[in-house]
């Protein structure tokens, strides 16, 4: 080995592992987001007694519509990339990037497993371990508003601008509620690192209930899910775009630029699912599964291989993510849209006071139970 590699061995291994994790995790998320665009149509179809898209085929095999995301991508690429003559060229181009960047960057902090030992190296199954990850998540998701607002502003279209204004009002309002719903969790776990939070959820409450966040903070979970859906701008809260009748901020966008907005929406849905799983449903934790294997409350134990345990944990995280993504789809196709005053009233008159009340009650309980 050359002296350079010898001297920087640890750094090189760290960089290589990080790059590998980014590739695998991001690849998985991109694939899942593409499948989610199909799942959205299939789930809504099944709910409405239809079959959904099932025609795109390769060599005559349609697999009940599995190739539709690919067909969509081809279609989007070959559409005309239209830009209004009076648009701000730079901002118009940047807006989809601003929409896509924060939601993609946020995945770096999500722990998708505990750790794996590879040739004696401890490989953390999280791209970036940050002690203040929760604050970073909130801060970056606050940046997503730039994508919406720049798109509306740079299009030089009044309808787009109005849509962007609605979006700004909605997203900034719900940002407040979203942050406050998570304060209760911060108080309980005493850490803002997502991996720390997940590890803390591996304990048992009264010896048999998994100490998941939803057990401590069921109320905050409902508030979080509501606020997160509003942040995501999907149907009960889709006044920003309102694809069927009111005109949204990306009216002037077409081709892959539009696809970027659309993709950002689906990726944000995965992000919300992962955050809900991480913060409230134990992340990668499987109930009663520890590093050495299963230990049931009765005292029965089942020893498992380290790699099997890791695989089970990653699998558990995947299952939870898929479940919440599906749940978000079902909610999106069940509830009708709010009126704008109802939307704002829900945020400022309902979610915000309830989130504050939740913090108060959590604090009081912690104070009197002596956990403080």
């Amino acid at each position, binding site marked *: 080995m050359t002296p350079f590699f010898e001297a920087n061995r640890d750094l090189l291994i760290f960089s290589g592992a990080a790059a590998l994790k980014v590739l695998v995790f991001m690849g998985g998320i991109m694939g899942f987001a593409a499948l989610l665009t199909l799942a959205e149509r299939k789930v809504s179809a*099944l709910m*409405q*007694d*239809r*079959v959904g898209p099932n025609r795109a085929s390769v060599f005559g095999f349609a697999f009940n519509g599995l190739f539709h995301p690919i067909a969509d991508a081809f279609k989007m690429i070959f559409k005309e990339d239209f830009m209004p003559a009076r648009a701000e060229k730079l901002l118009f181009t940047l807006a989809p990037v601003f929409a896509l960047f924060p939601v993609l960057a946020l995945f770096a902090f999500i722990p998708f497993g505990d750790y794996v030992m590879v040739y004696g190296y401890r490989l953390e199954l999280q791209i970036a371990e940050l002690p203040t990850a929760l604050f970073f998540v909130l801060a970056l998701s606050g940046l997503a508003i730039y994508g919406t607002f720049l798109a509306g502003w740079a299009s030089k279209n009044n309808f787009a601008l109005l849509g962007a204004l609605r979006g700004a009002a909605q997203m900034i309002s719900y940002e407040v509620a979203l942050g406050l719903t998570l304060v209760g969790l911060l108080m309980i776990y005493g850490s803002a690192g997502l991996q720390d939070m997940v590890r803390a959820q591996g304990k048992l409450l009264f010896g048999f209930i998994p100490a998941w966040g939803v057990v401590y903070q069921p109320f905050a979970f409902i508030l979080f899910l509501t606020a997160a859906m509003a942040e995501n701008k999907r149907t009960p809260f889709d006044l920003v775009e309102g694809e069927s009748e009111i005109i949204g901020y990306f009216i002037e966008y077409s081709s892959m630029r539009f696809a970027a907005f659309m993709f950002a929406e689906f990726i944000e849905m995965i992000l919300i699912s992962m955050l809900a799983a991480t913060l409230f449903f134990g992340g990668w934790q499987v109930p009663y599964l520890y590093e050495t294997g299963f230990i049931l409350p009765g005292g029965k134990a089942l020893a498992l291989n380290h790699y099997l345990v890791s695989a089970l944990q990653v699998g558990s995280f995947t299952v939870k993510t898929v479940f919440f993504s599906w749940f978000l789809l079902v*909610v999106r*196709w069940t*509830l009708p849209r709010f009126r704008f005053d109802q939307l704002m009233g829900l945020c400022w008159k309902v979610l915000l006071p309830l989130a504050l009340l939740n913090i108060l009650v959590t604090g009081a309980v912690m104070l009197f139970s002596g956990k403080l």
Partner: protein
Amino acid sequence: MISVKKVNNRPLNFLERIYLPEIARGLAVTMRHFFKNLFSPKNILTIRYPEQASPLPGNANLRTLHRLKIREDGSPKCVACFMCQTACPAYCIRIEAAEYPDNTVEKYPAVFDIDLSRCVMCGMCVEACPEDAIAMDTRELPGGALTRAEMLLTRDDLLRNLPGEPSTLGAANRLANEYLEGKK
């Protein structure tokens, strides 16, 4: 007389106003449909056209796929008069006429194309035909093709009789009947 129906909307009770139980009820409905259709698709209403077709109402007079009628001797009833081509608002009919070697009374269509991708199924060609040669009574629904070539009906596709035909009766093809009588 104007009748006014007065709707008394009762005020929402507490459980309805906090909204969550009602959301749960709504989700229960949609999820029930989702899982029922996921595991037993027999309730799905979609008809997978063109592989499946819904049965046509039995006694309805529908304008369905075109056909050209055939006479007893196998020659087309069509005399290539171009009336249907002229009447067609979608310009989907193309006719090339040719002459019988032994018949100075009428012509026959050497080419008779109907481009279904342009056809609007208006039935004007049937109305225009003086010989009652073109008809839209096959009770087959056109469409559902993947290429344009499949949408082009040629003379050979069109020439067919329904059961019980050919019929030599009718005033419209009197000349042809006389010609056929003379041939016998």
